[in-house]
């Protein structure tokens, strides 16, 4: 074999290896979905969604957990969303560009994003549950989750704001707008697609978080969904955890069915995110 054809062969083989490696991700996704659907689908029916939790695996449903998850996550987003967007607007639009403070804020945000969520759980336990005396309530859970997703909201919003061409700002300022008017009427609307993407991503992150909520005291067994911010609650991922670690096999299929519910909700959210992002990309290209 000539040196040239050997190099061609190596070249082609390497391409195939890289392609195969890329397919591992796809294979993992497919096997995850197949496994969960296989285990969970037989157990998943309308009554599973509407029934209360039960100690009998064949009777149990997820209604209190689904409502609890949605309750906690909506409250989380009501807190993390506005605060995150405001922080990002400050850092990108209002803060003096070269100040040490702004640099520090950016660093802080990036580092916060890397803090493990269980550590936020510890903070929630010490500060919200014990110090503020909120106990194991929806409010303390949501405050903790808000800390978890806040950096994500800030970072995605920053990126969205950065993608708005500076000519937009300059044009509106040149027309006599104040900085506030420019931000409100030009910059934020132009960045809104990206910001919504960030909020949806944060929403699905919060929806899937388990460890921090277990640390701040989400309940193992609760008969009704929460009705107020001071109520005890449980969330979908926590029931998946609890049922997966139960000895009785019946609970394993309940865990799979609950996983299927969670994954369907999250895949739904992610599909919206991806569709929106492609639309934004197209809008900027045209």
């Amino acid at each position: 074999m000539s040196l040239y054809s050997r190099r061609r062969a190596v070249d082609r083989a390497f391409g195939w290896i890289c392609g195969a490696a890329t397919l591992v991700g796809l294979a993992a996704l497919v096997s995850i979905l197949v496994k969960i659907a296989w285990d969970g689908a037989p157990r998943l029916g309308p009554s599973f969604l509407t029934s209360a939790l039960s100690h009998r695996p064949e009777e149990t449903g997820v209604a209190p957990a689904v409502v609890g998850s949605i309750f906690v996550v909506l409250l989380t987003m009501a807190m993390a969303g506005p605060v995150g967007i405001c922080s990002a607007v400050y850092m990108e639009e209002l803060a003096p560009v070269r100040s040490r403070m702004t640099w520090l804020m950016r660093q802080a945000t990036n580092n916060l994003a890397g803090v493990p969520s269980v550590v936020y759980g510890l903070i929630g336990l010490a500060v919200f549950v014990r110090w503020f005396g909120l106990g194991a309530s929806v409010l303390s859970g949501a405050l903790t989750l808000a800390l978890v997703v806040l950096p994500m909201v800030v970072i995605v919003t920053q990126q969205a704001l950065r993608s708005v061409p500076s000519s937009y700002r300059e044009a509106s300022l040149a027309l006599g707008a104040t900085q506030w008017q420019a931000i409100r009427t030009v910059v934020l609307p132009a960045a809104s697609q990206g910001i919504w993407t960030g909020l949806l991503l944060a929403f699905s992150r919060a929806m899937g978080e388990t460890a921090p909520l277990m640390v701040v005291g989400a309940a193992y067994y609760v008969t009704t969904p929460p009705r107020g911010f001071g109520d005890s609650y449980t969330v979908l991922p926590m029931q998946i955890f609890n049922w997966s670690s139960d000895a009785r096999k019946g609970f394993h299929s309940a865990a799979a069915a609950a996983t299927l519910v969670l994954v369907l909700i999250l895949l739904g959210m992610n599909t919206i995110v991806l569709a929106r992002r492609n639309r934004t990309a197209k809008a900027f290209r045209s």
Partner: protein
Amino acid sequence: MRGGQWAKGPAFLGLFLVPALLCSCRGGHVPAKDLVIDGSSTAYPIVSAVADDFSKRNPGLTVIVNKSGTGSGMQKFLRGEIDIAAASRPVDAREAQALRAANLPFLEIPFAYDGVSVIVSRKNTWVDRMSLKELQNAWKQTSAVAKWSDIRSGWPSQPIDFYGPTDNHGTYEYFSEAMAPGSASLRRDVQTNQEYNAIVQAIADDRNGIGYVGLSYFAYNQDKVRAVPIDFGNGYVSPTPETIRDDRYRVLSRPLFLYVSKAAYDSRPDIRHFVEFVLSASGEDDVAETHYVKLPMEALSAVRRHVAAEKVGSVMEPGRALTVSRLAQLE
């Protein structure tokens, strides 16, 4: 250019104010009407089953059950964070002292029996049975036992792996008292876990493992683990509903309890109804369904009379000889 969403500045600011409002309206701290139960994870299967059936008959009432362990549950009961403490041992002297200091008279409600089951893996081929002496020699803190052959010659010369619940569990305290009467401390190399399911699983996989769990956790896992028959002096006894009820499974049998404060029992009909429900035929059915042991009829009616008379304090308090026969004292 889409994005009318943001066009309303005030609406945007309003969104920002939402969390501030949410946080401020909490100020009044409305007393929770929910029925909150925590404590023994041994009792958790029964208590959650009873709560399940109870809430079906009382829609609209929220019952919350957690399983942080008897000791942790007692602490929360003492701090007034929960309404009912489930316990796999009676209140101990320290807790009784603290409850008196907090001026918190309480009702003690035994509602089921448990037998602490000593389990080994199904893969373990040699352990057929053990005497209480052999168990004590292996588990006590000063134990020199390290290998199976140290317990009985003829057993393999393999290191023993000890497993058990963490010390916030009543089962831990109970078992350590049975293994080391008086000192109540176990050997230091026991691998502890908060979750009984994890303990069972670890033993199931480890042919050199031995450990102890509540009866229910053994009964649900009989395909993976065996309970070791134990000789308490009168022949070998396995933990079964019969041997536990008639006290043949001696020092490892014990009642499970609920504790409620007398004040709450008087002022909260939901707590009273729940306690009555636990002691009803339906509650006792849940006990059997979750593989624990129903109280015998006489004991059950004694407990019912005891509760109806609202006798405060613990009959179990003075000593730590916690066998089933102590229940007779209720009479």
